[in-house]
């Protein structure tokens, strides 16, 4: 476990997370409005979303499917019977004056997500529950000194709230958890996990206790953290703050806090925010959610291979290193890309050409793998050319550059630029002879003992053949010749 050491004490850090993940359905949870991001304010608001008199909610079944998928993906229990409750409070971005959520009988209970701690050891984090609820609208306070603006586009978008047990012990673990969860949700296509767009947000509950004790300390909730970096910074600040207070003998007050992006500190929200009695009761406009076991089973059968399983398969069946496997599966798009290479060419080449060669070019150009100008088919073709000795590995790098720039395929680039490897023994021998003839002094030096010059000769042969000679053949013939 990670601890925070102060002058006086050592404290264990206890963290529980509540992650809000927008379910990526086309329509909202209880209305037909679009959930598309970035639309003009209040252009995706139906009469139901605006809570006009007489309007009633209608359940988007696809949202439930995706939430069930998420539950199954983490090995949780799907409650065939669950209830929608009203969470009552007043705020301008909450048109109904209540949020439709789930309180006493959520859709999903339990589950587990495996993360890696600071020492790269796997650690299981237990999930308390997942429930489905409506997102609220957006309040914009900073556009006008005297007015607040409300955008209801987000109001009613389906959310999964994923709650962990307080088993995380450091900001590193918290970050690892969110990354893993995000990856799983992307794999099963339940959420796009785009924290910048707000499709994934996190509240962190943080408390400290002296190392060796088991009783929980008072926790503070830091709300609406919307990047991995912010999660880590906020937790870091908060643990420091609480540690100082505890050292000074001060009592930690249970508070809701916000992370200030400017000062990188957490600060308390106004106190009256804490005194909420939500008066939960089952929403009488909706029937209890009753699912058939066959419905759940069908979804289970449709789950794709999840990241952990994929990683295991790469390691055991294909002897890929754990490090490489982790890199590949870390992103759904790169895993899909890799699956198009796997089994169709040499595995090691596939790994290298994807994770070293292509990835570095993508990173340099600041392009995501899903937007790669080089498709998996194209990369496979390039690798096949290398395997068949049509081009050398070195030439292939240049070819990849050109593929990256132009989007053209490997075969046509190799052909149009005449980059085919020279494997003709006679030609190679001729080049070798030419090089040795032109460098007779060096040959003498080599024969006199300067073995390093071998590399020079290889280089000269490659130069002579414009890099196209098959290096293995060059090496062999050169050795024989010398």
């Amino acid at each position, binding site marked *: 476990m990670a601890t925070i050491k102060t002058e006086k004490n050592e404290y264990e850090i206890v963290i529980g997370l509540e992650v809000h993940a927008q379910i990526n359905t086309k329509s909202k949870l209880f209305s037909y409005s679009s959930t598309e991001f970035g639309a003009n304010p209040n252009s995706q608001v139906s009469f139901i979303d605006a809570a006009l008199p007489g309007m009633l909610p209608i359940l988007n079944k696809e949202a439930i499917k995706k939430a069930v998928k998420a539950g199954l993906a983490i090995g949780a229990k799907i409650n065939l019977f669950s209830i929608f409750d009203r969470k*009552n409070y007043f705020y301008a971005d909450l048109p109904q*004056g209540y949020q439709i959520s789930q309180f006493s009988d959520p859709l999903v209970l339990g589950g587990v997500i495996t993360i890696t701690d600071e020492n790269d050891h796997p650690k299981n984090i237990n999930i308390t529950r997942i429930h489905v609820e409506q997102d609220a609208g957006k309040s914009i306070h900073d556009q006008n000194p005297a007015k607040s603006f409300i955008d209801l586009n987000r109001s009613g978008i389906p959310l999964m709230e994923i709650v962990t047990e307080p088993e995380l012990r450091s900001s590193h673990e918290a970050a690892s958890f969110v990354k893993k969860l995000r990856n799983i949700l992307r794999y099963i296509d339940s959420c796009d996990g785009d924290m910048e767009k707000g499709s994934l947000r996190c509240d962190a509950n943080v408390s400290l206790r002296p190392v060796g004790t088991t009783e929980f300390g008072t926790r503070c909730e830091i709300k609406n953290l919307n990047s991995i970096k912010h999660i880590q910074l906020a937790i870091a600040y908060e643990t420091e703050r609480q540690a100082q207070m505890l050292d000074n003998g001060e009592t930690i007050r249970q508070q809701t806090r916000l992370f200030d992006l400017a000062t990188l500190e957490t600060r308390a929200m106004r106190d009256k925010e804490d005194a909420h009695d939500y008066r939960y009761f089952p929403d009488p406009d909706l029937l209890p959610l009753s699912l058939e076991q066959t419905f759940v089973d069908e979804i289970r059968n449709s789950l794709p291979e999840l990241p952990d399983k994929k990683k295991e398969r790469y390691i055991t069946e294909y002897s890929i290193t754990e490090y490489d496997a982790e890199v590949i599966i870390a992103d759904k798009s790169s895993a899909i890309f890799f699956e198009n290479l796997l089994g169709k060419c040499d595995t090691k080449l596939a790994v290298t050409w994807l994770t070293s060669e292509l990835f570095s070019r993508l990173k340099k150009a600041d392009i995501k793998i899903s937007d790669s100008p080089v498709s998996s088919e194209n990369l496979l073709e390039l690798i096949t050319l290398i395997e068949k000795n049509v081009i050398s590995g070195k030439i292939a790098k240049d070819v990849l550059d050109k593929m990256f720039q132009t989007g053209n395929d490997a075969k046509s680039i190799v052909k149009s630029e005449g980059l085919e490897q020279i494997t003709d023994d006679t030609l190679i021998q001729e080049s070798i002879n030419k090089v040795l003839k032109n460098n007779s002094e060096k040959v003498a030096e080599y024969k006199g003992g300067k073995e390093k010059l071998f590399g020079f000769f290889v280089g000269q042969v490659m130069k002579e053949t414009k890099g196209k000679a098959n290096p293995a053949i060059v090496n062999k013939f050169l050795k024989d010749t010398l």
Partner: protein
Amino acid sequence: MEDITNYTIEELKNKLSKKEISATELTKAYLDNIKKNNPELNAYISVTEDKALQSATNSDKRINNGEARPLEGIPLGIKDNFCTKDIKTTCASHILDNFIPPYESTVTRNLWNNGAILLGKLNMDEFAMGSSNTTSFYGPTKNPIIAKDNNSPLVPGGSSGGSASAVCANLCAAAIGSDTGGSIRQPASFTALTGIKPTYGRCSRLGLIAFASSLDQAAPITKTVTDNALMLNAMAGYDPNDSTSKKIDVEDFTKNLNKNIKGLKIGIPKEYQLEGIDTEITKTWKNAANILKSLGAEVIDISLPHTEYAAPTYYIISTAEASSNLSRYDGVRYGLRVTEEGDSLNDLYIRTRSEGFGDEVKRRIMVGTYVLSSGYYDAYYKKAQKLRRLITEDFNSAFNKVDAILTPTTPNAAFAVNEKPTNLEMYHNDIFTVSANLTGLPAISIPAGVNKKNLPLGIQLISPLFSETLLYQIARNLEKELEFSNLELNKLIS
């Protein structure tokens, strides 16, 4: 000169199809009555004269082309808690007094699709909370009926007081209201009309502005049982946009009106025989039971043991749901907004809702908030839900022994508008009617007698879920024998 506004829907359909009268004539006649008598009665909040005449013209065209639909040319009044597209819909509340819905409720759309004509929007207790129509922002509605030797204006009952008053005074051929705890049956009882609360889920609630979501139902009020069945035929139907709407085949509710009731078993619940009820009510009830016996039904004593808990259960559940349903009236997106320079969001809420809501609404929101609040939820709301289930089980057991249950509709007759009953006395009005809402069962009230003051008293029949056809059958049989004529009642207006 015949008064065509006095005819039943059944009679009007006949005359319209025979072209003895036109829809336009009929509509004009009702509009004239409204002009003449609405100022006194205050049954209508808005009158849609132009729209009505336009619809009448269209109806006449259709009738002439032989394309008449089941309610073609029948002019109706609609309680002002049904959203009517582009027509002001207020719920008789200041907080919605400028609200014009951009959509039509499903039930009213069904009526227009059946050829009915909109005369206007009817007065009611604010947000349907009340049993006297005295809490309306637009002032009280008067009962067209008065007592024998006292011409003080009386309440028409509530919350669908405007609906009852309008039908009773021939200001429309029929009306729809809503019934959450008796809000159509009690007014029907006070005005000698027939009112039914259909099974919960029979009619769509989309566009019916919510009071208590698990109790509200659209409810027709008419001069006769046959008229009532014709109205329900047009109103009912599954609506996928209402998750509580039941996917059940639409029937012709008039189908068994002429069937006899020989061998049917009618239950008389002993717990409804309360101390201190007017003797006339008990007499009316006994009389109805005897009539049913004479028609060949078997009358059986039954027990509904949890009856005494019905009214408190109703008040806990309905106020809880209402406190949440009315949260959306906050001055932010539509309706009344009361605010001053420098106001915070809370200031805006407090000013708007304080001014916008009447006292009864505020009272119920506070009670509802209380019974849901932390520390009290288990003792009140959760317990009330348990009792609701027990009450439902009482009726389920009873229906193993009988086909329908006969009870009085109200423990009293219409009282004076100026009389100020206490809140508890007011809530007492509902004791016989709330169980039908709590259980979802269909229940009908028909006029069955008068008291010493010559004021009408209603009798109620309750039957199993989705058995409205049976309910109408028994009610029709009873109606025929009772031969209740309202010609002998004293009227406020000529």
